[in-house]
């Protein structure tokens, strides 16, 4: 399963937050917080699933 972390943006360098995803094979992806990016959509879906109340 991929692991996610948020890399905070630096206002002094005009950068915004970006999502870092580390895949099982060790590959690291940097995912912009663009709602139209399907990887970001998948991150949000994972976040929602993990925060859903457990039955």
């Amino acid at each position, binding site marked *: 399963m991929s692991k996610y972390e948020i*890399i905070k*943006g630096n206002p002094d*360098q*005009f*950068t*915004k937050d*970006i999502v*870092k*995803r580390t*895949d099982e*094979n*060790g*590959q*690291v*992806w*940097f*995912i*912009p917080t*663009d709602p*139209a*990016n*399907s*990887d*970001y*959509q*998948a991150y949000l879906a994972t976040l929602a699933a993990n925060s859903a109340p457990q039955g």
Partner: protein
Amino acid sequence: MSRAQLTSTVEQNTGGAVAPWVGGKNAAINGGADIWQRGTTFTNTVGYTADRWYQGAGNVTTTQETTLVPTGFRYSVKGTTTATSQPYWFQAIETAESQRFAGKTVTLSYYAATSDSSNVLLRLDYSTSVDNSAVGTYTSIGSSSVAATSSMPSTPQTATFVVPSTAKTLRIVIGAAGNQSTGATTTFSGVQLEVGSVATPFSRAGGTLQGELSLCQRYYWRLNGTDVTGSTIANICTGYIGSSSAISGVYPFPVQMRVAPSIAGGASTNFIGLGGGSFHYPSTFSAQGVSKTNAIISLTASGYTAYQAGALLMGSTSADYLEHSAEL
């Protein structure tokens, strides 16, 4: 419609006197399997293979095929089962392109062969969501199981569908119509989705080879270390050294992408920073400030002298690459 227009249309449909290669007619990008930016062998891979074609079944190895191809084509996509499985590939078509098909009769066609002479699949799905993810939820518009042999046919297998007027995203699904035993193959090329009830001669979606590459790069592109000649180090871009521990650089993309892409180096990419006349490695890669047209990347290592110019580089092996994905 004038007689001349009618004649032209008929001749295009029959491949007659008027050249039938029309850019934009075909909504299936890389239907001719020309573009393989991610590589040409995908061992037991569920994911993207040839550009824009996502293989969805487990126990399938996808490779580039150069022998079993339709007449007039250079490449096919071949899936070989490594255990009993149903190889299938799909391609989601973004809303800006899918919407011209809404409410219309469309024809899906391709040339396909199966080593066990089992049938092949032609299926078209739709979603009412804008730019639905390729692996998202879809509703089937229709599905056909069509005969195939171990030889590539001279005319394509075809199926016709009526697209609901509410469709926002279409998804083509092709491949084997059922499970194949271990070692069986399904091979295809010349995929076309077009308006109308008749399959017309194949045209690349992008019209030309370069047009097709550019279309593919709207969704994915890769900078390969192996593309360099005359050096064992590949250039990424020039950079500025903002501190003693990092060099950053801005580089443009070859085309504007569909959305701001996700960016990754290969799991074993050897990134190298050049500053003060010295190479700095091992370097840790990161990306920031990503837009549809460019990005900032940084390499972190020790020993830089701040406020100098430098360069961001990588090795030149097949493990060295930088990839960008804006797929649906």
